């Protein structure tokens, strides 16, 4: 009898402890809850970590404030900070330089990536090895890549050693300081970026090439098209989506260029390698010009959102087109 009572009590306890859990899971299993909880969580995070700081920044951009004074003593100054940014030669120079770096790097990456993908696509032997090796730079931490290139460009580095037989006959000291010359330093950064991100354009183009329908190419060949004709009239139009994707994604990323600048040149010599990211970073973290930085951030966000929307528009249009093509 006591045993029965004990089991009954145990069952009762088990039921009671199970009830809140069951109630929770029943509540969760409702469709409306199930639908909206993740959405609210994620959107809440975005609002808390991205939107609220931006509102704060807009407020700060109207203040007259440097970080060496307490925040409470700052006074409103209207559009003075915006005026300062817009009339600042350094800001525009850095912005222009960023576009120059991005343009040069992206063009090189596209051309090299395309040629490599075309070559790998036609190769049968060692294909997997080539692909694996070519993708490695993408996985290297950008800071480490910057460090590696700083070693290569060193005045007693391997680059100068390899160039020595070519420059020594002209009486030039082979121990060239690449990073002390403005133009060489700019190209040093561009080449480091090309080394790292050609792997991505290569990968995008390679998947573009392997998605080409062989029937179309065979048909063209049967009809007597030459290799060049097949390439320009059949393959290239079919690769257009891949090209658009590579251009948009790489340009967006290239405009963020920061890590190699810090690791290789610190924006120098002079200001010749300051990208917009580095310029702003220096204004805020070296010179403590907080409200100036806030105004510049807001302006930059406006400038970039135009580009971002153009990019997303191009991507969605492209993905819609390729979706249609897949259905057909």
């Amino acid at each position, binding site marked *: 009898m006591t045993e029965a009572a004990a089991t009954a009590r145990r069952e009762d306890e088990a039921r009671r402890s199970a009830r809140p859990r069951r109630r929770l*899971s029943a509540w*969760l*299993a409702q*469709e409306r809850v199930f*639908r*909206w*909880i*993740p*959405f609210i*969580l*994620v959107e809440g*995070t*975005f609002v808390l*970590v*991205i939107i609220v*700081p*931006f509102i*704060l*920044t807009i407020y700060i951009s109207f203040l007259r404030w440097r970080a060496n004074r307490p*925040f409470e003593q700052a006074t409103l100054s209207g559009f003075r900070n915006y005026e300062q940014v817009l009339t600042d030669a350094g800001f525009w120079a850095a912005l222009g330089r960023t576009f120059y770096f991005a343009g040069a790097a992206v063009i090189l990456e596209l051309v*090299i990536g395309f*040629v490599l993908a075309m070559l790998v696509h*036609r190769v049968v032997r*060692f294909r997997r090895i*080539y692909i694996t090796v070519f*993708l*490695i*730079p993408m*996985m*290297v931490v*950008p*800071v*480490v890549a910057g*460090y*590696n290139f*700083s*070693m290569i460009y060193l005045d007693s580095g391997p680059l100068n050693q390899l160039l020595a037989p070519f420059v020594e006959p002209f009486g030039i000291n082979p*121990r060239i300081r690449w990073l002390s010359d403005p133009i060489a330093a700019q190209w040093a950064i561009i080449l480091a970026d090309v080394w790292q991100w050609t*792997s991505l354009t290569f*990968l995008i183009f390679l*998947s573009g090439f392997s*998605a080409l329908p062989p029937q179309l190419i065979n048909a063209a060949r049967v009809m*007597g098209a030459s290799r060049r004709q097949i390439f320009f009239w059949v393959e290239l139009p079919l690769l257009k989506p*891949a090209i658009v*994707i590579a251009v948009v*994604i790489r340009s*967006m990323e290239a405009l*963020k260029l*920061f*890590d190699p600048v810090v690791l290789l040149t610190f924006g120098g010599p002079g200001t010749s390698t300051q990208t917009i*990211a580095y310029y*702003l*970073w220096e204004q*805020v973290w070296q010179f403590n010009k907080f409200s100036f*930085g*806030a105004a510049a*951030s807001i302006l930059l*966000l406006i400038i970039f959102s135009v580009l*971002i929307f153009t990019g*997303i528009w191009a991507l969605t249009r492209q993905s819609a087109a390729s979706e249609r093509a897949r259905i057909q």
Partner: protein
Amino acid sequence: MTDDAITPSSPPPTRRRRSRAPVVRHALLIGWAAIVMFPIFWMLQTSFKDSGEWVSWPPHWLPHNPTLKNYAQIFTFDVTGVAREATEQPFNIWGSLVDSLVICTVASLIALAMGTFLAYAISRFNVGGGKFRHMVLLIRMIPPIVVAIPLLMYYAILIPYATDSLFGARISLFDTRTGVSLLYLTITLPFVIWMMLSFIDEVPYTLEHAARVMGAGRLYTLRKVVLPLVASGMVVTFLFVFILNWAEFLLALTLTHPNVSTLPVLLNKFQSASEGRLYGPQAAIGTVITIPVVVLGVLIQKHLVKGFSFGMVRR
């Protein structure tokens, strides 16, 4: 060229022309492979050189006296035991290694959990409307420097100010692991949502429907039907996001200063020393940062493009 087309029955010239092409192709490919591997090789061999050989002219392509000193230096617990104490550089990487591991793991795991559920909701219920998938990308495309300044002010001013007036205690997220993790979690969420969407979209809805018809609850179906099918996708997404966090530099540099530092920030500290740069320990740190990530990356290679291209490229 035209001759070949007209007389296809003449094999010798055709064969000779074709036989040269693969050689050129392989030569070009091997050339690029050498360019790709060279900086990594240079870092590896520098990490085994002793101080005398770091900047010798002409540079040595392989260390003449290979040594593990650089690794011993960065992994040592006792800074004063090292011969070069005069340079007052932070040799020790244990602190940064732990910071990096904790921040990246926590941020990636939480982002994975939140992102997967949202991806499921988007895929099955079309939460947020058809455009939501693309709008998520917006967050990712904002340059980090534009986010960095607002966040610095948010972490260093608004949150301490708000907590001070609300709870009477100044809580600052600046220079804390929590602060960096929260930020990484937010900026990688778009990636998680994108990648998981592509995996979840591939799970046929009929499977779930069958389970539901047979009386399984929504959560049970999710756990027993959907989760096993997307588990490998979740692993890939986790690794991808982990690699992104591991490599992040700008935001970590701006939001941490004395206490917390991730591995890229530590490597940069060495670089900023203008006098007597420690090339050897730097190379050793670079190797320690790079090797695990490259190994992981090679494992999920096939899926990398999905992440880096926001799923725009198939396969």
